[in-house]
Structures are given as C-alpha cells and as structure tokens.
C-alpha cells in the first residue's frame, strides 16, 4: 500500500515526512524542486481540508459518512510508511502505520507537563516485520522545571507504549530536547 508515485524527484511519503517535520531542517533539494514544492502545497492544503469541502459537496450526507470522509483524509495524510506486523498467515497482511505510532508518541508528550513532542523518527528495519528500529523523539520543553526529569518520564512512557503497540523491536530510543521554551507551552 505504499504510495511510490513521485512528485519531482520525491515520493509523496518523503514529502509527507518533510511536512511532518515542519519543513525543518530545510531541504534545499526539495525546496528547489518545483513539482515537489507544488505537491507540498497541495499536501498542506489537504491536511487543512476543511468542512467547506463537505458543506459544498456533501449536503444531505449522514454524519457517519462525513466522519468517515474526515477520518480518511486525516489518517491518509499522516499515514507515513506501513509497518508490517509479524504474522505466520501468508493470506494476511497486518500493518500499523508510522503515522499511528507518531501520533501515539505525540499524545504521550501531552501527558508530561511542559513537554511537546515536535517530531518522532523511526529508522532502521522499519518495513521488516519484527525488525530492529531506532527511535528518536525530538521535544520542546518549557524552562520552568527540570528538563532531564521530564525527558525521562516521556522516555519511560514511550518505551512502555511502543512495547505494546509497535510491531518492531526498539533497538534504541533517544529523547532529544530540541527546544527550550522560556515560559508557557511552546
């Protein structure tokens, strides 16, 4: 189920990842590619797809269908790679999307006061069932409390959550403080 169509020199997954990272650090190779930039803009527009679309086109549609449409947009736009689940049945394909795990990690950050997860990156044998994966979580932390302690709390939460929900073996987990915010939530 991989989207391997290219926009300029890049796959839509690469562009989606870049957008997830808020186009930072800047990728000159992407930014200089007109087709890729155009796709980035459409992808951003897609993510911002509003109810205006539905107001125009879905008059009379039931709420369940509208919910389905919105969920399909949201989950597809943030899906990332498919991560296979180890399984013995050759007639089955079981996957968890990278986007599902990223969102899970992000929600764990929300549980730790003063912490916001900026980015989660999975590298290594991501698309190998039961593969070994390195996880890096970049966070922003407010300066009104112990940074190390909160990073450790998040690390413990992520370790537990990935053990329960990720279809890979976590080879390493790095929580990196990318930003220190001077007061208030970032």
């Amino acid at each position, binding site marked *: 189920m991989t989207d391997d169509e290219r926009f300029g020199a890049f796959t839509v997954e690469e562009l989606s990842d870049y957008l997830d990272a808020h186009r930072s650090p800047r990728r000159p190779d992407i930014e200089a590619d007109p087709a890729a930039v155009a796709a980035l803009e459409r992808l951003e*527009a897609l993510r911002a*797809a509003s109810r205006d679309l539905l107001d125009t086109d879905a008059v009379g549609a039931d709420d369940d*269908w509208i919910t389905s449409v919105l969920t399909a*947009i949201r989950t597809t736009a943030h899906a990332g790679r498919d991560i296979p689940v180890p399984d013995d049945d050759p007639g089955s394909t*079981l996957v968890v999307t990278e986007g599902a795990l990223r969102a*899970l990690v992000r929600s764990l950050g929300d549980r730790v006061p003063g912490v916001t997860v900026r980015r989660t990156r999975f590298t290594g044998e991501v698309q190998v069932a039961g593969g070994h994966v390195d996880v890096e979580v970049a966070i922003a932390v407010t300066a009104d409390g112990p940074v190390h302690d909160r990073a450790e709390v998040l690390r413990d939460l992520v370790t537990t959550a990935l053990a329960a929900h990720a279809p890979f073996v976590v080879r390493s987990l790095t929580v990196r403080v990318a930003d220190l915010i001077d007061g208030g939530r970032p």
Partner: protein
Amino acid sequence: MTDVRSVSRALTGVVLGVPGVRSVVPPGPRLASLVRDVRSVLDLPRDGGAVLVQERPDGARVRVVVTTNQRVPTLVVVRAVRDAVVEGTAAVLGRRPTDVTVRVVEID
C-alpha cells in the same frame, strides 16, 4: 451473485465488536490521489459498510482499516481483527477469504 455491500456491512459489525477497535474507516484513495485531488475522497461509498470486500475468481479479498484504543495492545487487536474477519467471511460467504489486509491508522 453475492451483494458485497451487505457482506461489508456484516463484516463492519464484526470488526466493531472486536475489543480495542474504536472505529472502522473506509479505505480511501491513495495519498498520491488525494494530493492531486482532495475531492477524490468524496467518492467513498455512502452505503454498505466500511470494510472493503472484493470478490475475485480465487476468492474474496477483504481490506480493513481501523482505529484502535491504546488501552489494548495494538498487536493483539490487529490479529484479533484478522481472525474475526476470516471467521465472519466464512460465515457469510461459506468460505474463507484468500486475502485479508488489516491496517491500523490511529491508536487513541
């Protein structure tokens, strides 16, 4: 000829009954299609269930997209969904599906 919409509705109910499943999402257009034309998502069927069922000469192909509850381990849920789909398809169609895909897109 089997009405795949009714099979889809039945399987959607089966999947929703699996502990840890929050919702069943219709498999939508590929991301590349959405990027080219966001309105393609409006082609999602308005009747039938959210599980995609396709009849092929070699057997049924079933595709399921779910969101799950983080209180239940996802790997347990995804396998339980597969087992429920296989059993449900066999009950409705009288034979096991030849191809089942289960995709977890959100863990809330």
